[in-house]
Each structure stands twice: as C-alpha cells, then as structure tokens.
C-alpha cells in the first residue's frame, strides 16, 4: 500500500545523497586499487600488480593475521563476559550495587578510546614497574579491546535477555532443570542470535581499532590498522588499497549472505505461522 510519503522527490533524492556520501570514498578506494600509477591522483591504466605486491608483503600479512587472531579472541572474551554481566543485571533482580554495575557496564561505550587507551597504558606501566610484567604486546591490546567489547556485548545481550518470557525458564525448572541446566538448555539457545550479533560487533570493533592498539601494542604486535596507519604517514601505498578492497569484498559477501539468510528464514516462518492458523481454523 502507498503511504502519503510514497513517491516524494525529496525522499528519493535524500536517499541518493546519503548513498553517495557513504559509498563514494569506498568506491574510490576500490577503483584506485586497480590503478597502474603509484600516485593516487592520476589514472594511468588497469593492473592487478598491487594485489600481487600485497600478497608478498610480509608486514601486511603478519598484521592481518595478528588482527584476525586478536579480533577473534577479543570477541570471544567479550561475548562470554557480556553474557555473564547481562545475565546478572537482568535476572538477579535487585541487589546491592546493581545500579552501579549497570552504569559502569555502559561507561566504556561513551568513553573516548584515547582515554581508555591512555589510562590502560598508565596502569600497565605502573604494574610492569612493580611486578615486572605484563610486557606490552597482543595480550595488552586484547585487554583493551575486551574491555570495550564487553560493554558492547552486554548491551546487545541485555536487550535480547529482557525479551525472553520468564515463564520459559520457570517451565524448564518445573520440568526438572536445575538452575544451570535452565541456562544451558533454554536461555542460551534463545539468546544464541544475540550472541552471534555481539560476536560480530565486537570482532569488528577490535579489527578496526587504531587508537587503543597504538597505546598498548609492543614489539611484534603490530595490527593491520597500525601497519596501514604508519604507512599512510609516509605516503599512500596502493597495495594497501588492494588489501582494503579484499577486506571490503569479504565483509560485503558476509553481510549480504547473512541478510539473505535472515530474510528467507523470516519469510518461511511467517508462511508456517499462517499455515498453522489456517489449519487450526479448518
């Protein structure tokens, strides 16, 4: 059905303007990754050589591997910590310090990364002075990323946990589940989709972080964004465009596949519900 805004010219032109605003930079990057010239301002011809260069660039590849590892670990930790935090906040009712925990869990969401990075750095330097460890490296970056990630994961999981009908958990207990079994057999499967969302979100947050990594990295722990950032200061290298294009393609395929899957699942579900009602009536 058409609504009153259906064919407004304003709506359409606004949409197009936003798309241009969002995607022109990305398109530029993709196009210049095929540019034969070293200079990003002149187009001299089509080439794949930057892709070949990038695949032989040890520093870039190492950075990519470190970033993927780090993002995976950070996302895993964030989801685990986030699940516990959300569960305590939503299910344990009122307890002393609940309000404090609730607001503290959200604080890193609004805290500038620079501040998180510098405060962690100060703490780690002090710790190292007293105890002799930890050495700065992947572990310390992981600490920073998991700290931010836990907050984001908590927010995502809390909203799903609040939607779940408490009677489902009561029914499980009524049928013989001990509290841990209730969580494992009923709550966890029901929040699974939120856990996946939280994982993807925190993975991305870790993967594209420069600021915290810049404060907390040590020798041998240069993440991909750090590599790109340091090279950009020396003048842009087109092989970075190539790496970026590969990442964009992988992410796009992932996003498109997952939204297609969700769309189909939702359509199937609606059809099944409609069938069930038609059948119940007959």
């Amino acid at each position: 059905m058409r609504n009153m805004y259906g064919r407004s010219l304003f709506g359409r032109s606004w949409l197009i303007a936003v798309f241009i605003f969002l995607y022109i930079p990305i398109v530029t990057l993709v196009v210049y990754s095929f540019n034969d010239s070293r200079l990003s301002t002149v187009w001299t011809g089509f080439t794949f050589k930057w892709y070949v260069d990038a695949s032989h660039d040890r520093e870039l590849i190492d950075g990519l591997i470190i970033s993927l590892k780090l993002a995976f670990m950070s996302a895993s930790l964030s989801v685990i910590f986030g699940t516990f935090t959300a569960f305590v906040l939503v299910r344990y009712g009122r307890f002393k310090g609940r309000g404090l925990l609730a607001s503290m869990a959200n604080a890193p969401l609004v805290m500038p990364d620079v501040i998180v990075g510098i405060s962690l750095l100060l703490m780690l330097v002090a710790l190292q002075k007293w105890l002799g460890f930890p050495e700065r490296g992947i572990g310390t970056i992981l600490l920073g990323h998991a700290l931010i990630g836990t907050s984001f994961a908590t927010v995502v999981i809390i909203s799903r946990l609040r939607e779940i009908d408490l009677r489902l958990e009561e029914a499980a207990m009524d049928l013989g589940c001990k509290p841990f079994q209730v969580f494992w057999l009923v709550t966890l499967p029901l929040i699974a989709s939120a856990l996946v969302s939280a994982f993807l979100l925190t993975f991305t947050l870790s993967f594209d972080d420069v600021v915290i990594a810049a404060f907390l990295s040590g020798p041998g722990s240069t993440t991909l964004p750090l590599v790109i950032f340091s090279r950009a200061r020396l003048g842009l290298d087109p092989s970075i465009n190539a790496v970026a294009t590969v990442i964009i393609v992988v992410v796009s395929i992932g996003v498109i596949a997952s939204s297609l899957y969700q769309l189909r699942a939702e359509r199937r579900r609606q059809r099944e519900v409609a069938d069930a009602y038609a059948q119940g009536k007959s």
Partner: protein
Amino acid sequence: MASVTATTDREVLLRIDGVSKVFDGVVKAVDNVSLSVKKGEIFALVGSSGCGKSTLLRMLAGFETPTSGRIYLSGQDITDLTPYERPVNMMFQSYALFPHLNVWDNVAFGLRRDGLKGAELAKRVDAMLSLVQLSKYGKRKPHQLSGGQQQRVALARSLAKRPTLLLLDEPLGALDKKLRETTQLELVNIIEQVGVTCVLVTHDQEEAMTMASHIAVMDEGCFLQVGTPDEIYETPNSRFVASFVGNVNIFEGKVDEDEPDHITVICPECTHYVGHGITGTSGMRVAVALRPEKIQLSPVQPNKNHNWCAGEVVEIAYLGPHTTYHLKLETGMVLKVQQPNLTRKMADDLTWGDHVFAHWTRDAMVVLTE
C-alpha cells in the same frame, strides 16, 4: 493433631495449612489460607486479577515460598522443596512452549531430565502425543501450530512426567470463545482419563464451573467460599460471591419474621417470604439475592402479598435461547429478569415501556447476612 473425617472415602492429596504470602513486607497477596484437595479432584481457584490466586498456585509449584504456613502433598511437607524436586507440573498461561524445540522434544524435555532415553523415552512421548491427538505433529515447531494445538502440546508436556499434582494457570485464556467451549470438555476428559489431581486458576467463573468439581472463590488473598459449583451458585454466602459468580439482583432489607423453616424480609421494593431459616434475629439488616432466571413475568397482578413487584421494561437484550429484561421498579431499582424463549418470537412479546409484574417462589432466593 486430630484427623479430619473425610466426607467421601477418597484420601486428601494436597493440604494447604495456614499459608500466607507477604511481598516486600507489606503487600499481603495470600492471607492465611487453608485448603484440602482430594485425590482425583479438579479444584478451581477463581477470583478477579490480583486476588492472590496466581500467587497461591506459584507457591504450589515452588516458584514462591510462603511467608508462613505449610504445604503437604501426599502427607509429605513440600513447602521448602525447589520446583525441580516436586512431583508437581504446571501448564503455564500462554503455554510457555520452548520455541527452539519441536513438539516431540518439548514433550520429552521433562522425561530427559529424569534420565530417560532411547526406546523408553520414545514410548512415553509417543503415548502422550497420541493422548492429545498430535502424533503426526511431533516434528513441528511451536510457532507452526494453531492456538488449540499449542494448548494440547502444553498439556502433554505437563502430564508427561506423571505428576502427582497438575497445576493449570488460566488454561484456556489464550483461546477464542468458540474454541474454549470445546476445549474445556476435551481438557477435562484427558485429565480424568489420566486420573491426575488438578488445581486450576481462572478468572472466568463459567470455566471454573464447567471444569471443576470444587471451587474456591478468592478475594484479597482470602477464600470467601469453598464448595461445589452448585453450592457456590445456589447458596452463595456473601454479596461478593453472589455477584462474582453469575448475575444477581440484591434487595436490601430487614428481617421481620424469623422462624426455623422460613423468614420474611421487608424491603422497600416488596416483602420476601423465604423458604429457609437463617442464623440471625428479627430486625437484623440482610440482603436477599435473587438470580434473574428464577423470576417469572406476568401481565396480571399475582394473587399473593409477597414475592412479587411491579415494574416497567426499560431494556431488552435478546440472546437467542433466552432474553434478559431490565425492569425499573417504583423505588428506582433495576431488576434483571431472564426468560427462556419457549416459543419463537411473537408479536405480543414484551416491549419497551410495558408494565409487568415479576414474581418468584419461596425457594428462589437466598438470604445473605454478609
């Protein structure tokens, strides 16, 4: 403690002994309630929302702990047992089926917690599914079922563990009216077939009367009256019970003549000659409750000096099997009268503005002192 002599030879299965529940130290949800439910009985707790019936049911299931009092099941004190230790299962309001499991796994859920597997598990689950006539639906997910089918899955799941006591929380609340009537009897049939003792909670007094053998009417955390459906309907013990269960006309008046086999009550509208005695004195203020269907209408003045009054028809609700008339009496009171439609609608039927006489017999009404 002296044992109470049972009125029938059935043994008492559930005994609630002086149970109270106070929330946050102030809100008395359930106030010193005692009750016995016999084996094989279907017992209904009725009351409007917030009367404490759901809290009482949740204490039976183990989701709430009584502030004081004890609960005994088959003679065993279960007050402090957790929900997963009690031989009690509940069918939840709006069913609470696990959305991530199919019908078969929903029914098997409780049995698996008891360590059942393989052929024995399959035998028990299949038996439950055939009991509720859903054998073909085992692979469906809950959202692929109609409301009535979901209700049957919920019933199968709560019966699968062969509980000693089955709790039903608004069992038909999520179904539409037409489906509810057929499902009520179906549900009772299955429960009686299994032979399980059952406590159900409902706000719908008709549902309670259809399904239960005994009813407790609750208000503000207390039982106002406990009895069979006909006792509750025909001899309510208070104004609240009389008007909560069905429709009623209430006349306020004073006892004039007080004899063991009859009393007369003088009201502004008319004099009532009631065919039963009361525990009271003459001159005492009482209410006379008269159900609309126990009144007859006539165009001529009845030839007696009590149990009738005159009025004008101000409202007519034609309901098919019967018609409800509202008569405005001289005192301004509106009398509800229900007449069976014994013939098809005729031209000389009562209409708005007609003056008629309402009359009733000495056994039609009940005197309420509370």
